[in-house]
């Protein structure tokens, strides 16, 4: 019952956020988006590079068992570009931005600075929360796109240098198997993940209790719920783009 009530309160919060969208502080949005992008770029690239390396080593081992290691490029495109890279990138961006957002807003709540803003007649939703939600929504697809490129590049490096696959064959097969639909699916998923990250982070920060405990708890709830809801949304979007679930 409590869970249902908080889902309702969360949806009301999101609807209120969308309503103040025209009055949102645009400058703040851009500033926040830039700092989010720069702060998350390195870790996204590192994580997707390792994901690419992981997938390549595993794919090579499995394909060798079936006697077709030359299909590695195709495997990387189908498994990596379609699902693994966008998912890992969005998950990592979401974990970093979501926990940072939740902690930041919860700290403001704990220090009663949100109340102070309201007393001064500054609506936190317009000037603090909505810019952050929008920035997270915009930045995630951008970074996830870079992450997918980085993952693909890392796969190529590992396949050719560590595993000794022919570079020409690898890239030809990899690029042949990427469909525009895969890119659209990846960007849509990243957009959905970004919106979830921003709204969940701001919501848990906004509704945090007081004390240092509450800050940790807000970050914890944000990342866990983000992953759980994100996994479900990912499955549904995969079904929408590729079909076959029902």
């Amino acid at each position, binding site marked *: 019952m409590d869970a249902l009530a908080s889902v309702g309160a969360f949806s009301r919060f999101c609807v209120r956020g969308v309503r103040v969208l025209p009055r949102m502080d645009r400058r703040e949005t851009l500033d926040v988006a*830039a700092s989010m992008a*720069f*702060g998350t*770029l*390195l*870790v996204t690239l*590192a*994580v997707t590079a*390792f*994901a690419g*390396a*992981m997938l390549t*080593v*595993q794919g*090579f*081992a*499995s394909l060798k068992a*079936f006697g077709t290691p030359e299909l590695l490029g195709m495997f990387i495109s*189908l498994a990596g570009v*379609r*699902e693994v890279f966008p998912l*890992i990138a969005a998950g990592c961006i979401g*974990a*970093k931005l979501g*926990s*940072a957002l*939740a*902690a*930041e807003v*919860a*700290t403001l709540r*704990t*220090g009663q600075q949100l109340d102070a803003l309201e007393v001064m007649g500054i609506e936190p939703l317009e000037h603090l929360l909505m810019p952050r939600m929008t920035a997270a929504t915009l930045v995630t697809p951008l970074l996830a796109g870079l992450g997918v490129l980085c993952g693909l590049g890392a796969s190529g490096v590992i396949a050719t*240098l*560590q*595993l*000794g696959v022919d570079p020409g064959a690898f890239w030809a097969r990899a690029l042949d198997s990427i469909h525009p639909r895969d890119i659209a699916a990846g960007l849509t998923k990243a957009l959905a993940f970004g919106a979830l990250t921003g709204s969940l982070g701001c919501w848990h920060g906004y509704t945090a209790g007081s*004390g*240092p*405990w509450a*800050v*940790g*708890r807000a*970050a*914890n709830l944000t*990342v*866990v719920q*983000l*992953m*759980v809801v994100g*996994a*479900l949304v990912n*499955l549904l979007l*995969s*079904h929408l783009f*590729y*079909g*076959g*679930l*029902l």
Partner: protein
Amino acid sequence: MELARDALAALGEGARDLCAGAARLMLFVVSVLRHGALPPAGPLAEQCWVLSRQCVLPVTLVVLPMGALISLQGASLIESFGVERLLAPLVALTAVRELAPGFAAMMVAMQAGTAVSAEVAVMRVREELDAYELMAVDPLRHVVAPRLWAGMLVAPLLSVLALLWAVMGAWAVAVGARGFASRAFLEGCLVTITPWDLAAMTIKSAVFGLVLCAVACFEGWYARGGALGVGRATNRAVVGAILGILMFNYVLNSLLYGAPAVFT
């Protein structure tokens, strides 16, 4: 131009912080091992219980759709090649090699990583850790070491759970939506997973659990400055844990499955 310079500066700073952080993390782990190679049994059991209780539901909720996803994508791939009998081996191998250890560790990183780092950080900013030291109770041995070992013990158990859920999710989609034969699918999964795969899964997830709890405790231990510091510690713990898991995943994959031309 300025944007590019900012981006480069951010990248450089990030790389430097990463290396410095990794070195400090190793020193921290060494000192934990020196102080608490054998942690007290009571706190250890308690931490194991807390960790598994916190993580069972999130692991279930995340891995079920993931299993369904590999089944969904794998089925369309495999049907286009006309080799339907390979779906079960594909799903089982993906689950036992990557999905189960990886996602179990990811969820422990999300759930326990934030909780453990926040817990230790709160103890730090409220000067409880200093109080322990004053009372001649070694906080590294009584607070940090149990959490570290609990991560190593619980992550393999959770990965077994994740393996079951992943196969269940995949089975539901394969049988319910794609019309594969239920019995043949489950038998295919059982035949594919060898004891060696299970051993590799256990090793991988134990390493992941150790790494992510080490990062979480490290960030909590060095937290500074009130609520803000706690927030920063949890944030850095999550990111560091994910990064650590993926790095070790690559290294362990190369050692356990790969033909590592680089290493030979």
